């Protein structure tokens, strides 16, 4: 009888401990999920509120009258989070700059220096 009571108590304590552990794990994973979700949001395609920056990289804050006579610089502003150099490698930006003209076009059109609008309109 005594042993039975002891076993019951031990079993109850073990159960309690397991429940506590399970609860803690659940809360941890939930908070981790939430944290991950937050990171996901800030990294995956949603821009947080941001300051403007001028060409020298200085903050423009019109609300507090800081540097507010300067035009903003997309490079310094968006470039804080995005790879400006990689973005502007795109052919929409380069428009043929640095590219050699197509060999046949170059042979036919002596004035062409690139395949694009920049230096190449034929």
């Amino acid at each position: 009888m005594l042993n039975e009571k002891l076993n019951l108590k031990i079993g109850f304590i073990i159960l309690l401990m397991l429940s506590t552990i399970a609860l803690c794990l659940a809360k941890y994973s939930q908070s981790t999920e939430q944290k991950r979700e937050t990171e996901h949001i800030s990294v995956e395609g949603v821009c947080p509120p941001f300051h403007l920056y001028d060409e020298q990289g200085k903050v423009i804050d019109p609300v507090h009258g800081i540097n507010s006579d300067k035009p903003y610089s997309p490079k310094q502003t968006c470039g804080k989070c995005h790879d400006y150099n990689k973005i502007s490698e795109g052919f929409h930006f380069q428009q043929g700059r640095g590219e050699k003209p197509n060999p046949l076009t170059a042979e036919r059109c002596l004035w062409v220096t690139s395949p694009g609008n920049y230096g190449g309109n034929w």
Partner: protein
Amino acid sequence: MIDMTSFDFVVQCGSCHPGGGPLEFDREGYRYDSLMSDPNSGLISGGENNLDGDYYKAQWDKSGVLEADCFLCHMPEYNFSARNQQINKLNFRWAATTGSGLAIVTGSVKEEKTVKVSYDKSRFDEDGRLSPHIVREPRTQTCLNCHAKPGWKKRGANFRARTDVHLAAGLMCVDCHPAGKYVDDERIKGKDVHQVGKGDDPGGHVRDDLDNTCRDCTQCHEKGYLNAPIANHSWLPPLHLDKIACQTCHIPQRPVKAALFQASDVFNPGTKIPEKGKYLWVFYGPDMKYWNHYGELEMMGFDDKPTDPYRPVFARYKEKIYPVNQLHSAWPGIEIEGKNGLAQPLMSDVYKMWMTFKNDITSYADLALIKDDNDDGVIEINRPEEIDALISAVTSYLRKTGYPLEGKRVVWVSNDRIYRSGKEFEQVPTEPWEASPYGNVHKYTHDIYPARAALGVNGCGDCHSRSSDFFYASVVKRPFDEKGNPVYEPQYKLLGLTSWSVSLGMFRESNLKPTLYVLFVVLISLFVIWAVDRAIEILGPPSIGLHHRLFSWIIGVAIFLLFVYLMGHRELLEFMLPSRFWLDSHHFGVGAGVMIVGTIALLIRLKQLYPGRRIRKRVASCFRCTLIAIGLAFAALSGIIMLMHPEALGVITRLSYLVFDLSLALIVVGIILVVFREIVSAKVPLVKSHHM
């Protein structure tokens, strides 16, 4: 003398350029404004700067540069007009600020008025930060801000839901032209990678290594991306899809005009042409009539361009047939001794030459020889004396301006002919898809028509018939003959086909197949007669008279006459019988059916003939059997060739299509003769005998 400089490029071209690249850095990689502002650079603001094209008369230190402007694409409310006004004022570094709508910018570098910025504080939060409306995928209108106008002139692109099924379905440009980390093609995939998926235009060579990175038709219409309907071409012999691009059948017509011919040699008399230089570009539309494109653009604007439907030209590009606009061209060139290819005088010089002549006809008097030979109100160069007149006038003008002509000569270029004089020309090679080595060729890929309007929707005759534009349309070969009229050639020549090969296909679809279908009706009629005879024999009265035989014939002939009647009533024909499209699209089944019935008829007939003789002798002794046997043999052989369509067999593969249908016709004729023989030789007694 200096051509367009980098600084000029920003002013003249910056309105359709998102910034960055050559609008930010010189060809050595230095930022323009930083270098010019550096006293050690030796550069003088506004100076000639050793005729360095990046710094000649540039004021980068004052104007700043145009950085890549993210909001230009990613902010739907971006103000292009405000941005472009800043560019015109040489306020490059302020353009992004005003375009984004975040501030008002006053002043002008060009007019030497201090440039000032005044931000709209309401756009910022209490911490001075922004949360603007930014989108990952630019809207279609954003793309059209730059691509609409150039898309019209030589591409005839409308980019509107009214004329394009994809836009009507709600798709955006970026659905087919994606960029970034969510794209499929590894060549352009990646975070912050802004290589926009592109097609493959014959005349475009920017980043050829990225050709066909856009989503093509099959990616959506075979896989169902964005719930696209799956294309079902089960009715079409697969050979077609190997040789013909999707666009060819699905752009049977262009809704708005594109320039077919650009003459850069005479003065454009049109009204409302907005800029001086554009008076040197005279356009002709697909009908080879003068077209005041710039005047229309100025008066109507891009959004209200008129509808001018026309049939596109087809050409082979990289071994597939596409609908294209092959631009024809005429212009003054400069030949340089020892060099292949041509240079060209500045268009502004040719413009000034014409303006001088217009103001004083004794200056460059030769130009008076150039006449309007075709009475369309516009002069054109098409006769030897006119060619000589232009060459002489341009040479004279260049000499007066001090252009160094040693080792050079002015020529006149018309498509692939380089004229050194009115009577002497050299022909230069062109690619199969080009009208001129100096004229753009644009593949049509936008403004797709609905599937029900595609070529082939009415059957094979849409293309394989005498009235078909696919092979027999007249396409312009040369803009003008000596009378100022276009010179045409048939479309099939441009596709590299011969008249006889096209005629074979036409004969097969327009003559042979209809004959085959009529033979089916004859066969059915005869079969009905035979069947009625048998029914009368089995179910009829004990005594069967001639009137009973006549009854079956009346029914059979009535069926045939009904068919003849239906031929004159198309809607009724299509309601009552399988359509031509159905018959063509089930040609395999029809052919197999004919062969099976032919085999059965042959076997039945052979069993009736001389039972003791060998099969071969039985066949040889019976004309009908011979017909059917030969038909079956050739149908089987040509059918196998069609299925395998070996390119190595070339002409034989092409002929097999005709041979197959001829064989089917032969089999049907043989079956008709067998059935007819059964009908006339049936010994139906006048009185049935009843055995006790």
